């Protein structure tokens, strides 16, 4: 079904909102493939539609002229059949490759022979068309054309929509997926200012390029504000300058701004100046206990 892959991708994005999975390259590729296919189908539909419209119009015109000069009308009425053939091509299963559908449709419409096997399958439409032509024979030419063309337009619009809506949805899904990943990457850039090996492996090459570029712009911007570290927590204002922290991930020895050395071993607690360790809290190495 069209759109299934995109649903999978959006589900994945939703499921992984809290952690950061590897870039799903195969799925993205298969969705772009689907978009290309849908796009081709849409283009073919438009082409077929334009041809069909022209043929139908010509058909009605020919019938009109025949009616104006009754001597020219023939018993077999090949025109009638060719129009119904044309409709049958529009009714075709859309799972057929669109290009062949279009070719088959036009070739058959041109070679309008009354004994075509496909004629039986479209009898319902065929008969309704005959009755409508019978009752509308007195109408002016323009009205007749409008009547003949209307079902073709309706069918085209339905088919077009069926292909165009999933196409747009697929693109939206791709945009949303990539955007969510960019948001995550941006978060990492602000908090860590570097990529861990683990994260790097989960990024696509394009995302790594993005990260580097983003980091560059960010640094250029933050450089304007000197020693105000814009990457720190922006939700909770500091209440005191000395805090107790517990180490949750080993980070070895660090040298503070004031020149002291802190050795931060896992599970140890320290009473330290907040500004010295704030980065490490944002990065999740330490937790603030009191």
């Amino acid at each position, binding site marked *: 079904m069209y759109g299934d892959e995109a649903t999978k991708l959006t589900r994945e994005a939703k499921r992984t909102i809290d952690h950061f999975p590897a870039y799903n390259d195969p799925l993205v590729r298969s969705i772009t493939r689907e978009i290309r296919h849908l796009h081709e189908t849409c283009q073919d539909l438009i082409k077929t539609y334009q041809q069909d419209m022209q043929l139908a119009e010509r058909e009605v015109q020919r019938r009109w002229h025949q009616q104006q000069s009754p001597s020219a009308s023939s018993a077999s009425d090949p025109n009638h059949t060719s129009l119904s053939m044309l409709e049958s091509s529009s009714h075709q299963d859309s799972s057929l490759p669109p290009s062949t559908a279009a070719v088959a449709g036009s070739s058959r419409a041109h070679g309008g022979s009354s004994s075509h096997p496909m004629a039986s399958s479209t009898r319902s439409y065929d008969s309704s068309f005959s009755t409508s032509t019978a009752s509308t024979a007195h109408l002016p030419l323009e009205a007749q054309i409008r009547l003949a063309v209307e079902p073709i337009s309706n069918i085209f619009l339905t088919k077009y929509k069926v292909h165009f809506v999933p196409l747009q949805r697929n693109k939206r899904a791709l945009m949303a997926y*990539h955007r969510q990943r960019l948001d995550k990457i941006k978060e990492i850039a602000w908090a860590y200012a570097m990529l861990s090996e683990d994260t790097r492996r989960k990024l696509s090459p394009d995302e790594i390029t993005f990260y580097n*570029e983003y980091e560059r712009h960010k640094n*250029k911007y933050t450089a304007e504000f000197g020693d105000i570290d814009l990457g720190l927590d922006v939700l909770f204002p500091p209440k005191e300058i000395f805090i107790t922290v517990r180490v949750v991930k080993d980070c070895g020895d660090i040298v503070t701004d004031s020149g002291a050395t802190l050795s931060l071993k896992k599970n140890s607690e320290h009473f330290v100046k907040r500004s010295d360790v704030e980065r490490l809290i944002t990065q999740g190495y330490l937790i603030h206990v009191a």
Partner: protein
Amino acid sequence: MSLDDDHYHYQDRISASREPEDLLLTHDEPGDLVKRLTQAWINERAAPEILKYENDCVNGLVAKCDDQQAVIDELDTGNDASILISILYQTELERIKFVLRSYLRTRISKIERHCQFILKDLSSRRKLSKAETSYAESYLKTTQDHYHSSFLSSLPLTLQVQDDVVFHRKLNMVSEPSLDEGVFCRINEDIGYFQLGEGDPIVMETGQIYIFRYGAIRALLQRGQISLI
């Protein structure tokens, strides 16, 4: 709100104890700058669209922070009283820095969210600082390049645009701030009768608190007649 009250309290006490020449570096008292920045920060966080950049305020305070750091460094650490003062100064400094960075980051996140819109819309664009404008431009380029090389480049040409509108559902790919969002605000000065869209005008008096549609009171906020809370 206790946080801000707290904040002013510190500020008043500390400004009073500061050397006089320290205060003469800019025309504004540092306390006023902090008040202005804090209000700008609250407005910025509450408003759906980007507001005017408080250039003087930010620059003034960044400079002040450096000065204050120098004052702290010079304090005699042998003396108990100066240790206490040093701690108060440092706490104040950390808290001002917090407001500054939260203000700047809030703006950055809004700029990133509505990047394309802000750069196209002249009146929004004028509200950015120079650094923000160049940040927005390079950010927009980087993200668009990323989308392009990640998947758009393999789509048909007509689908590669990044600002189309899904017509049947009015979904615009360029996200715009929603001016219909509700905001809480406090009236700063007597405004008198004010026409809110349709319906009867309401009387606005100092100190009243309302919840409004942001779009309706946008102009009042720009003139500083109300503040968001």
